[in-house]
């Protein structure tokens, strides 16, 4: 992994990272990716990818009806900044 790759992944993952931190992740991600590179040697022709660990079960869907009551005040008590029941963020549109 090159330093630029680390910076680019950090950007995609929306993680701030200063120059001094990069070598640390460069080293460990290189080591992790080389380790998981072992997967290459597995014979997987004709094997279908497995996303759910229980055979025959798929994600269940529920009817699209509202089941929760409005508790926004309770939820917004954890928000960093709220005004008039709205979450505040820095100006997005100039």
């Amino acid at each position, binding site marked *: 992994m090159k330093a630029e790759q680390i910076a680019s992944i950090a950007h995609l993952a929306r993680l701030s990272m200063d120059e001094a931190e990069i070598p640390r992740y460069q080293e460990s991600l290189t*080591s992790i*990716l080389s380790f998981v590179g072992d997967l290459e040697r597995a014979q997987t022709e004709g094997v279908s990818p497995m996303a759910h660990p229980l055979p025959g079960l798929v994600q269940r869907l529920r009817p699209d009806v509202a089941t929760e009551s409005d508790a926004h005040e309770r939820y917004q008590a954890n928000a960093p900044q709220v005004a008039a029941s709205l979450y505040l963020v820095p100006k997005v549109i100039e």
Partner: protein
Amino acid sequence: MSLHTLSLAQLGAGLRAGEFSSVELTRTLLARIEAHQPQLNALISVTGPTAMQAAAVADGVLANGGGGALTGIPMVHKDIFCTDGVRTTCASRMLDNFVAPYDATVVAKLKAEGMVMLGKANMDEFAMGSSNETSYFGPVRNPWNPQLVPGGSSGGSAAVVAARLVPFATATDTGGSIRQPAALCGITGFKPTYGRVSRYGMIAFASSLDQAGTLTASAADAALVLRAMAGFDPRDSTSVDRPVPDYVAGLEQPLAGLKIGLLKEFFEKGLDPANERCVREALAVYEKLGAQLVEVSVPNLALSVPAYYVVAPAECSSNLARFDGVRFGHRAKEPKDLLDLYKRSRGEGFGPEVKRRIMTGTYVLSAGYYDAFYIKAQKVRRLIANEFDQAFAQVDVVMGPTTPTVAFALGAKTADPVTMYLNDIYTIGANLAGLPAMSLPCGFVQDLPVGLQIIGPHFAEERLLSAAHAYQRETDWHTRVPRGYE
């Protein structure tokens, strides 16, 4: 009477018979927590006042002849479970000030049974770690030796039970996070089949692997609490709609004729010979009880760790995208713009191991690498699951070590993440295949506990618990308490 060493069944019977009250029991255990927390750092929050109120309510119910098997018994929740009105941090700076606005299903169910929560257990940050050293609140110490790790990620839950501060703590297991700390702390850890216990309100790490379970002294104790925790939950889309057997009634199933598979790959290089000796002695006990030992194989087991370290980080990078500094969690000061808000809030809120996994996940899901890493890992996952299926066509359960070694020193494996990841070599397979698995104490190496792992086919919880119970009737390893905590 030493209330802190009683089993859950004994505590329940004593409470119902009025031999002691929940208030007395709660006060006793809170005092033990106060005495030992400075040494162990096993809890992030202690909820003394609300615990005393809940205990008084339980006593009222019991006095009127009400209540069930668990009413009035104190316990601790891993700080990954949302607890209504109580700070829930997931051991992260990101959620340092988060007060959960609702109860996780597991929390609600145990509350409805009348259990009394004494606090929230320390853990690896977002359950990412095998030594409890990634916690924002500092490492947990192993009650058997404070220089050693308790294992992770449910290290705090394991330490409070091993030190007999509570008889039961909830835990979660994504790659071994219940079984590995159970082994390193000398207690019984149970991870049910994927989907058996609701994940609703359990902060997500890797949703196709995460499963809630128990840390207790014995398998009989695990059966009692698992019976209350398991069951269908419409709020968890992966919860399995299937009746819950009475795990307690199932404990006494006869063991004779049980076919035990010895997984060849569990006994190959990497396993400490002293640990192997303990595990083999435990297997000899099973043979004496009438079980039959058969060698089986999961040829691709060595690839379980690499497959896991693609699948789990991929799911983690997606799950942890919700932490954006807007609706809850840490927010960076004076953001320039929205991007700066996201990046710095996440950069400051997450610790190094969490960032490493988010970045690994982001990489393996990115264009150009998705097929080579993510799809390939999902295929290897299928191979391993199929190999376990084939093994269970020949045997009833599989047994082997839980960990390659006993507990290691704090700091010993933090330099290289891969060294730490390899510690989960024996536990990850069960998560990839969604199988129920447990660890129980089976001896000591240099005064440190060793774990025996039992893995079963899907929904064989009863079989595992009764097999463990049969062993625990023959041996007393699970009753050993670390020095200073008797």
